[in-house]
């Protein structure tokens, strides 16, 4: 039993293990064969923040595994009645749930939940910290189009500062040997990146120059409208990934986006729907890596020496 809180905490072998398992599970499901799911489990899906796509993906994953899911959503439950996160988690524990999948708006909430649950917790997004299963799904998608992640140039474009997707992807790609680049305006790139595994580019064409993969991030409209970032129009002019700007990238570049897309802002239609786009594969693969992640947290850790807490960049 273990938790999946952050890609930052994982070793390369953990990541490849989960990805390998996901590949096998995908093959089995597509072939209509049974999957090796281990004993059936009952897990809670605890979403303090609304997220239809991630929750549905976990439900699909659980149902393929033969797991039972119990849904707790942010509204209408005790979570809105002033109960602390600790008490909510303790309640789930004593409801005899065997695992928890949690999304919460606070960075670090997943590790707090894991401490109190004392059983497997899968982080489905904690604030601006990490969203590990998204990164795993993205990695599986890359591996279906590229032979290996090792040595790839990957540009992560957009609101890196506020993105848990960017952090999880950067750590995963770095661990697997890719060259990571963060691309975006100064208002959306952290001012200090010494502890993030990537180089910073403020110019889109430089940033995606010869890139094998371009990952777009979702822009938050509220942030643009409140003046905390460049406007939508300015972003489109300077950072939109489209047919014209993509000429700087490698000829066989693949384009990704975690969704939901602001069409016409981060990406133009042609790119979002074109052959370089892997966006729908990302969604589908999300299910299989979540199956593998659920399987992984309920399995025993390797008998290796204690894992490094603090990852080295």
């Amino acid at each position: 039993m273990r938790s999946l809180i952050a890609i930052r905490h994982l070793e390369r072998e953990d990541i490849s293990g989960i990805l390998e398992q996901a590949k096998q599970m995908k093959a089995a499901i597509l072939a209509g064969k049974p999957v090796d799911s281990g004993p059936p489990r009952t897990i809670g899906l605890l979403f303090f923040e609304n997220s239809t796509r991630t929750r549905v993906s976990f439900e699909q994953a659980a149902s393929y595994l033969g797991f039972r899911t119990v849904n707790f959503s942010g509204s209408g439950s005790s979570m809105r009645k002033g109960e602390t996160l600790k008490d909510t988690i303790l309640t789930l524990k004593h409801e005899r749930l065997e695992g928890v999948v949690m999304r919460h708006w606070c960075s670090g909430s997943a590790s707090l939940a894991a401490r109190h649950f004392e059983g497997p917790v899968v982080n489905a997004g904690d604030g601006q910290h990490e969203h590990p299963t998204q990164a795993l799904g993205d990695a599986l998608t890359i591996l279906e189009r590229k032979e290996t992640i090792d040595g790839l140039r990957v540009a992560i474009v957009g609101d890196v500062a506020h993105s848990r997707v960017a952090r999880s992807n950067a750590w995963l790609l770095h661990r697997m040997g890719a060259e990571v680049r963060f691309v975006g305006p100064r208002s959306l790139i952290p001012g200090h990146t010494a502890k993030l595994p990537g180089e910073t580019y403020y110019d889109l064409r430089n940033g995606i120059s010869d890139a094998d993969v371009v990952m777009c991030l979702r822009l938050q409209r509220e942030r643009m409208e409140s003046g905390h970032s460049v406007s939508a129009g300015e972003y489109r002019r300077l950072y939109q990934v489209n047919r014209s700007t993509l000429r700087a990238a490698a000829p066989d570049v693949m384009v990704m986006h975690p969704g939901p897309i602001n069409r016409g802002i981060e990406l133009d239609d042609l790119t979002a729907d074109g052959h370089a786009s892997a966006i729908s594969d990302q969604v589908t693969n999300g299910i299989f890596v979540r199956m593998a992640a659920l399987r992984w947290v309920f399995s025993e850790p390797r008998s290796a020496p204690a894992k490094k807490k603090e990852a080295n960049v």
Partner: protein
Amino acid sequence: MKTLLKNGRLLDPSQDLDTIGSLLIEDAQITQVGPEVELDDATEVYDCEGLWIVPGLVDLHTHLREPGEEHRETIKTGTMAAAAGGFTNICCMPNTTPPLDNPALVDFIMDKASAPDAGGAFVAPVGALTLGQKGETVCDLAALKKAGVVAASDEGGPIQDSAVMLRAMEYCLQIDLPILAHCDDLSLSRAGAMNEGATSAMLGLPGMPRSAEEIMVMRNCLLSLHTGCRIHILRVSTWGAVEMVRQAKYLGAPVTCEICPHHLCLTDEAVGEFNVNFKTTPPLRTQVDIDILLQALGDGTIDCIASDHSPYAPYEVDVPFEEAPFGMSSLESTLGAVLTHVTHKGVLSPLETVRKLSTGPAQILGLEAGTLQPGGTPVAQVTVIDPSLQWTYDVNRTFSKGKNSAFHGASFQGKAVATFCGTEIYRDPLFDETRYQSVLP
């Protein structure tokens, strides 16, 4: 009653005294101090060989939480924690519920602090600068001063509007009341949870930029320079803030400043994996800051050390990092942390250490404290320190109700082993009892 503290190292910055000698407390007053103390009929004797005998420590920055937040601390538990930390004088901050903005509340605090079951340390209340600490209307400060406040402050609710701060300074200048200034530009820091830097970027925690602190230090220094109002900058944490203070002093502004122990020995990396015990305001900064802050402490730019004792109930801190409150319960860790990380590292001499923790802060607010001179204080205020005692700080053994501390489990060298405020108000379990002799019938 004659209490003799015998053969210790007397350290009193108020008279530049650093010598082996003894101190006599007679009927709650210091009557003799020095190498030669004449006495033949002491009723009790503390053998202080190898120990320091210093003026009771003075803290300009304590949150006692009463009234209104008794689940975090009370005047009783807070003063007991003060005594255990070696403090005989503490200044309590006005951001209580309701805030300390009227004379009746000042009376309430002083009554409670002097009650027989309280911890025995003196409590000097600090009044709110504005009504309800809203940063809008300046309080009736003359009335507050008459009731007994020793300063006025916007602690916990830093005044953002410069015109309000200017009016407050003009007012305080007129009635000769110092201002304790909480310097934070909330438009930059409000959403933040820790120092803006590489660690916050890695953890995805919203950052509090150093400029948020420095801008307000600079503004308040300039307002002080131009009005002539005495201000004391509460807990600086960045090299830039200290340079602002240095510049203001050079220009002749009546400005002083303080620093907290945690800003002298911990960096933002200590937050680790979202450990809420390391969430403070201003936040823990970087090693570069620590290096320059230590230097500024040594050269006198930083005038004193304060605890910023900020206790919280356990349930309030067992929450996600971003939702946790700022600060730590620190009255009982301050001296140990300072001796370990400042004095024993050679940054301050023992005498200068006592100046930063006792005589210095007393002089900033003109408190009758911080001296061993007979008659220098209303009653004897003396702390006996064992500078070499090795001990581990354990929040489960503190008097404070707040168990939130970055120092839980830390090893310290040096501790207050006995505290006197009139009479003995604290004796540490680690004090060697064979050193004590009573000849009471």
